[in-house]
């Protein structure tokens, strides 16, 4: 396991002024040894390009890639000792499963006995020992996926790279493999970089993640941090559903005797006054954007009283959508805003449209974003 460091990586495709496109725009990040790191972003955000730059399959236009203590920017693909699990697996159809898995050790000059052992170990690891003598095209998608992983791991790479490895599996298998894949990767202790556009995958599997957009890294952090404290509207949106409202940070209220001591600030918004954890570097009068996740809003039929940490908004139910485990209400708020509110769907009936409701939002559940 090795640390991966990217310094100011830039990748421009096409030359000349007209056709060129910036795929990766000055990305710097460090992935710690043994970390399971995710690159998350929409199609075309440059995440796969970045992964290929680490592997050496694409040359960066500028910047440096460091594996461990070594600058590998100029090093040929085959000398980097990274192992990539391709999106479509790229299993070689003319070789058996065992030959595929033995390929890495063979290229590293491992003697026959070692090769065999390593292939056997890794096939066992992915529970595919019985399929060693089959050809890849005799396997199902899920099985091919496991073989691709076994092939990569058998190479004993300094870092494991995974390019949307679950995207070709059906939904149920994908859910199952999330857990399985994380377990396998963590059990090897290898530094791993995983590219995906599926935020659920990233949130449920990553140690840390980088959210990318338009070739840039927008935010890096642990899944909870990124989800709860998105840095931008894009991140908040991309990682799940969110309600947004513009606002202005209000002056601190006079410290009366009955006012509880709190770090929360008041934000004046068109839907009413919200409370939020005090944002760094933004004083009273700043224009901001407030972000509230649908499942963090408490919806009640009775009027509620505010305390120092919970804001109260009035709303009217416009529509309810049943989602199985959850029920989502679309609620009309002042100034024509409509918010999504998610509640666990119990056995009781949905609140009918037109019902006046009270929304309670705790200060720690309001994220303040740049306006």
């Amino acid at each position, binding site marked *: 396991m090795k640390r991966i460091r990217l310094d100011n990586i830039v990748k421009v495709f096409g030359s000349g002024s007209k056709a060129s496109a910036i795929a990766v725009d000055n990305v710097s990040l460090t992935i710690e040894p043994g970390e399971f790191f995710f690159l998350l972003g929409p199609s075309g955000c440059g995440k796969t390009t970045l992964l290929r730059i680490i592997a050496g*399959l694409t040359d960066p236009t500028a910047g440096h890639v460091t594996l461990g203590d070594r600058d590998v920017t100029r090093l040929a693909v085959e000398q980097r000792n990274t*192992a990539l699990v391709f999106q479509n697996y790229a299993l070689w159809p003319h070789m058996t499963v065992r030959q595929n898995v033995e390929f890495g050790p063979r290229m590293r000059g491992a003697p026959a006995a070692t090769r065999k052992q390593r292939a056997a170990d890794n096939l066992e690891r992915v529970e595919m020992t019985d399929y060693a003598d089959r050809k890849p095209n005799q396997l199902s998608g899920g099985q091919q996926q496991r073989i691709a992983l076994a092939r990569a791991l058998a190479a004993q790479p300094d870092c494991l790279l995974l390019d949307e490895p679950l995207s070709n599996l059906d939904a149920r298998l994908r859910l199952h493999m999330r857990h399985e894949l994380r377990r396998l990767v963590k059990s090897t202790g290898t530094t791993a970089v995983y590219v995906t556009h599926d935020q659920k995958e990233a949130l449920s599997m990553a140690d840390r993640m980088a959210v990318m957009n338009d070739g840039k890294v927008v935010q890096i952090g642990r899944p909870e941090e990124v989800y709860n404290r998105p840095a931008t509207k894009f991140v908040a949106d991309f990682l799940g559903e969110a309600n947004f409202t513009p606002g202005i940070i209000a002056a601190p209220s006079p410290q009366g005797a009955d006012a509880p001591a709190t770090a929360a600030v008041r934000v004046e918004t068109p839907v009413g006054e919200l409370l939020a954890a005090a944002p760094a570097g933004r004083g009273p009068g700043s224009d901001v954007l407030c972000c509230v996740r649908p499942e963090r809003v408490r919806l009640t039929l009775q009027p509620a009283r505010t305390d120092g940490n919970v804001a109260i908004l009035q709303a009217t139910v416009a529509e309810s959508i049943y989602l199985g485990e959850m029920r989502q209400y679309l609620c009309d708020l002042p100034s024509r805003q409509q918010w999504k509110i998610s509640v666990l769907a119990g056995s009781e009936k949905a609140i009918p449209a037109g019902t006046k409701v009270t929304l309670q939002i705790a200060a720690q559940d309001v994220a303040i974003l740049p306006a």
Partner: protein
Amino acid sequence: MKGTNDFDTHRLAGGMGGHRGGGILANLTGGGLTLMLLAALVLPIAVVIAGGFLHEGKVSFYWLSHALTNRILVGQLVNGLALAATTTLICMLIAIPLAIVRTRFSFRGAGILSALLLVPLILPPFVGALSMRKILAQGGVLNRILLDIGILGPRFQDWPDWLGSGFPAVVVLQVLHLFPILYLNASAALANVDPAASQAARNLGAGPLRAFWKITLPLIRSGLFAGGTIVFIWAFTDIGTPLIVGFDEVLPVTLFQRLSQEDISPLTYTLVFVLLSSAVAMYVLGKFVFGRNSAAGASKASIAEETRRLGPAGTLAAWVMFGTVICLALTPHVGVVLTAVSKRWVNTIVPSVFTTEYLRFVITRPSTYNSIINSLMYAGTSTLIDIAIGCVAAWLMVRSKIRGRTFLDGLCMLPLAVPGLILAAGYVAITVKGSALESIGPMRNPFIILVVAYSVRRLPFVVRGVTAGLQQVPVAMEEAGRNLGASKAGVIFRITAPLIAANIIAAGVLTFAFAMLEVSDSLILAQLENHYPITKEIYKQMSSGNVDAAAIASALGVYGMLLLGGTFAIAGALMGKRLGAIFRA
């Protein structure tokens, strides 16, 4: 991610040489190949065309206007166009229904029948000409059969001459040889059409015929055009068939006679220009009318084709349909074999006395034996050259981003559009008496120009075959090899080569097969007997007036067919359905 493949290619090709920008080695190789092809393909044609525009040392249209005002020559040109158009049309009428039945229905024996349809490709029609005469002429086998079963009366004068002479005979022979090319193209085009396209039409109320006419036919139009072009140009510039049938009223025959002389008049070169520009004009016209805006193959089929299983009656009908065409198409071959083994075949349906004398004769007599060896050498050498050049060119085109890639691709495919006759004329022009290259000319030792001619002509097959193979190998498979520690060469030998081996071998086999029985270059470029390839030897025998001429020529034809049939069988086994891809323009 959709864009992945675009940039995948970059790094791997860069891997051939330097680090970026396609690689120095790749660029040098590409440049070298381009120069070689320019020298071997474009230069000779340029020289021959230029030769037609020189009059008394000055650039002039003297010869061109001379040619275009000559009633005989213009008549020959028109004859040739009519001949090619007729042949192409009849080929389409035969091939399209067969292709539809084959792709839309499944029935017992469909594979065998489909394979048998390709057999006619293995015999140049001019070899079959003599035997066709034996079968279809007034006193031929067919009329004997009709007499036997009482359809014809005993009066010989009333018997029809089925083959006729001249124009219709050439058409019949060409059609029987060439329709498989259209069949392959039509089948491939039909297979590429997303079945959902016509199903959507049916769903919206179109009947089967209407759906075919409105949806399928427009979608396969460019595929048909591609096949039609090959057939048209082939028929338009065919020397062998008209020569043997005795239909001299076409330009290629005139050209052949003029090119065989030691001193060549500029008018000859002008005729080459006229022939080439007519072919190009027809191609452009055809492309304009038929080849535009076809979306076929642009998208992958969204659903699998459901072929309908035919019941006993349907199967029988399909067998009759395929069987009739196969029987007709194989008549020349059967005739050639029978002629080769007949001691006596006069006024009977089958030969009355059989012999292996001729089959033994041609491999024991020096001149005929030599021709077989010569052909093996020419074809073998040119095949090796084609495989080497073809693999490199295909690699550069599929896996690199070198400059001039599209140009190189065009150059490699150009021989499909340049008739053998014209290229041969070009080689005659650059090796003409008194030129620097005289010593490798037809009148001295044509080994080099024959091998180069064969190589150039068949290069598109190899490039196409290998390209098709490479395109089916996802770049990710090569990248995975590099990623796991294999070197550039290691990836080529361990991953790429094994995956496309079938394509390379099949393309090589086809190249070899076609070179073995190549006609135009062989007839024109081999002028000395000891350098004759098989086809020229067959031509010599047939035009010798010898009593045994037909039998000896046929015996040579039998050996040619055996070689070709064998190689085709290997190619078919290796390539399967992809065999068709090689014949598409």
